[in-house]
């Protein structure tokens, strides 16, 4: 299979891309063409691309052709684009890439340790903080990707472990094999995703991203101030005040309604209290009239 595989898989890949290009051309025809959203189609072809990569890995140069030599960088490379997450980098082994990344990180951190001087000292510090946050985020993101990469490897190992058992449950089609792999990948993911390590890494990457974003926003705010433009902070502040006022108005409207109801009740009570007096005086009225006649 591995000898002839790339031929038809390449054709498939080519077709998917051709289809996507054709689709894009259709979308460019402008209004009038009643077509589903390009976003949905992007997802469709994104998913199909992943499937195509999977087929390619099955057909040659993938995890199974690498099996006799055991799992290793070759396996990781063969799985490129395989899952929608954790695509392992092609070329160097993950260990080499990790080592390079860490070396770069260390030298970058050292460079950021230099203090600022003079008039631009504050800006210098802000820039350093921004870069440090970016490095921090890159570091946490790499941990997250590595974790997902391990999940992926576990799924592949599980699929290999299932091997052909010579039973009717052995997959006879690529699609059946793919579906089995998906189940194993999801199982491996669920297992990892509920671990304490995943929770810690997930939170760390989100928090690092937010810390970076805050500093980016601060830079944009400064720029906006210099350009005489309203900043997000100012708009937020106004929004908060507006919402507080709306609550107060609601509250006062409720009170006004309560007052209206109380007034109506008081009016009804007054009317009720006045009624007996009116009844008492009522008989005298005709009498007076009579007397008048």
């Amino acid at each position: 299979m591995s000898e002839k595989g790339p031929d038809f898989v390449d054709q498939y890949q080519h077709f998917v891309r051709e289809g996507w290009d054709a689709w894009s051309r259709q979308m460019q025809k402008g209004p009038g063409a009643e077509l589903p959203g390009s976003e949905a189609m992007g997802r469709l072809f994104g998913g199909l691309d992943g499937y195509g990569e999977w087929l390619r890995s099955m057909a040659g140069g993938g995890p199974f052709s690498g099996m006799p030599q055991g799992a290793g960088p070759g396996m990781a490379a063969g799985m490129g684009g395989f899952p929608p997450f954790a695509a392992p980098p092609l070329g160097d082994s993950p260990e080499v890439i990790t080592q390079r990344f860490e070396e770069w990180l260390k030298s970058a951190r050292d460079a950021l340790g230099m203090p600022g001087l003079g008039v631009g000292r504050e800006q210098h510090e802000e820039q350093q903080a921004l870069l440090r946050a970016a490095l921090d985020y890159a570091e946490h993101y790499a941990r997250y990707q590595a974790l997902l990469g391990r999940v992926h490897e576990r799924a592949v190992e599980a699929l290999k472990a299932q091997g052909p058992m010579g039973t009717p449950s052995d997959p006879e089609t690529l699609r059946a094999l793919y579906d089995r792999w998906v189940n194993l990948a999801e199982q491996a993911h669920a297992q990892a995703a509920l671990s304490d390590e995943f929770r810690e890494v997930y939170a760390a990457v989100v928090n690092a991203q937010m810390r970076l974003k805050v500093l980016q926003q601060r830079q944009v705010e400064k720029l906006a101030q210099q350009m005489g433009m309203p900043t997000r902070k100012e708009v937020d502040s106004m929004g908060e005040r507006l919402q507080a006022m709306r609550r107060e108005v609601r509250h006062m409207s409720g009170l006004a309604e309560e007052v209206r109801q109380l007034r109506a009740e008081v009016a009804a009570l007054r009317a009720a209290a006045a009624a007996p007096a009116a009844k008492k005086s009522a008989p005298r009225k005709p009498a007076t009239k009579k007397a008048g006649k």
Partner: protein
Amino acid sequence: MNPNPFNIDPQRARDEVETFRRKLESGMQTLREVGPIELGVTPREAVYREDKLTLWHFLGEKKPTAKVPILICYALVNTPWMIDLQADRSMVRNLLEQGEDVYLIDWGYPDGADRWLTLEDYIDGYLDRCVDVVRTRHDLEAINLLGICQGGVFSLCYTALHGHKVRNLITMVTPVDFHTPDNMLSHWTRGVDIDLFVDTVGNVPADIMNWAYLTLKPVRLNQQKYVGLVDILDNPKEVENFLRMEKWIFDSPDQAGEAFRQFAKDFFQQNRLMKGTATIGQRTIDLGDIHQPVLNIFAEQDHLVPPAASRPMGELIGSDDYTAIAFKGGHIGIYVSGRAQREVPPAIHEWLAER
């Protein structure tokens, strides 16, 4: 040595790929011919609007026989049209056919102006005013409230605070215990600095929410689903159904920042509804204050709200009249599957009719 550990015939594999290619090719025509996708198919009228919110009243083909209307309180995430997706997959339509009178809160799409809306604004404000509108329209002291997912949590809080306005409470796929071991979303959320997150992003973009949901089952939802689509590309009706669901999934509103902050911290992180320490405004939510009849429907294969998250409700509420129904399906299947159409609306109708 056979490099392929599975006994898949190479010729058969090539044929398979060729068939797949042909299906995709011919399917392009189907995709081109699919018209605009619409959700929310049952005729309806707007009976109340406030800010982004619309209160809809559904118009059935026959007059409702139920004396007390149902107000559906949907979640803030996604639009509510999943319950009225298409004519043959509509919980709303099926409830109308059972003789129920149905209202729905459509929260709309919050923008920057809604950044500071709190849970109190939603529950004591919008929801309460919608309940009052329905009560006034029907001249009733109390109505039936049906809460879905996060809307179910809102409905529980509301009923605990404004019990005199609720005659019967129905909750669907509603969590009360956010810390069950199988709750992936809650597990991930617990270490996140929510204050930093909301202070940074303001309103939480729908894309972030969707990304989080997709990564719960990353391969299935990002890849396998679209591979499966090729199988049905020769069937325009099926393709339309698929795209309708896609539209519903990805056409989702942003989340008002403050409401998100409170929901994520109090419910997901601190599990305060379960502990009886959740607050709306200045008031503490004690589910023991719910004395109305409660019907709780959850889905056995729900990956977003695991059954274990919903089951404890019966022990927490003060009502003696509690019914739980375990539906065989998932978080979405409970509304759109064929089984759901046959089982869920009749179960709701029968339960209400007995009360």
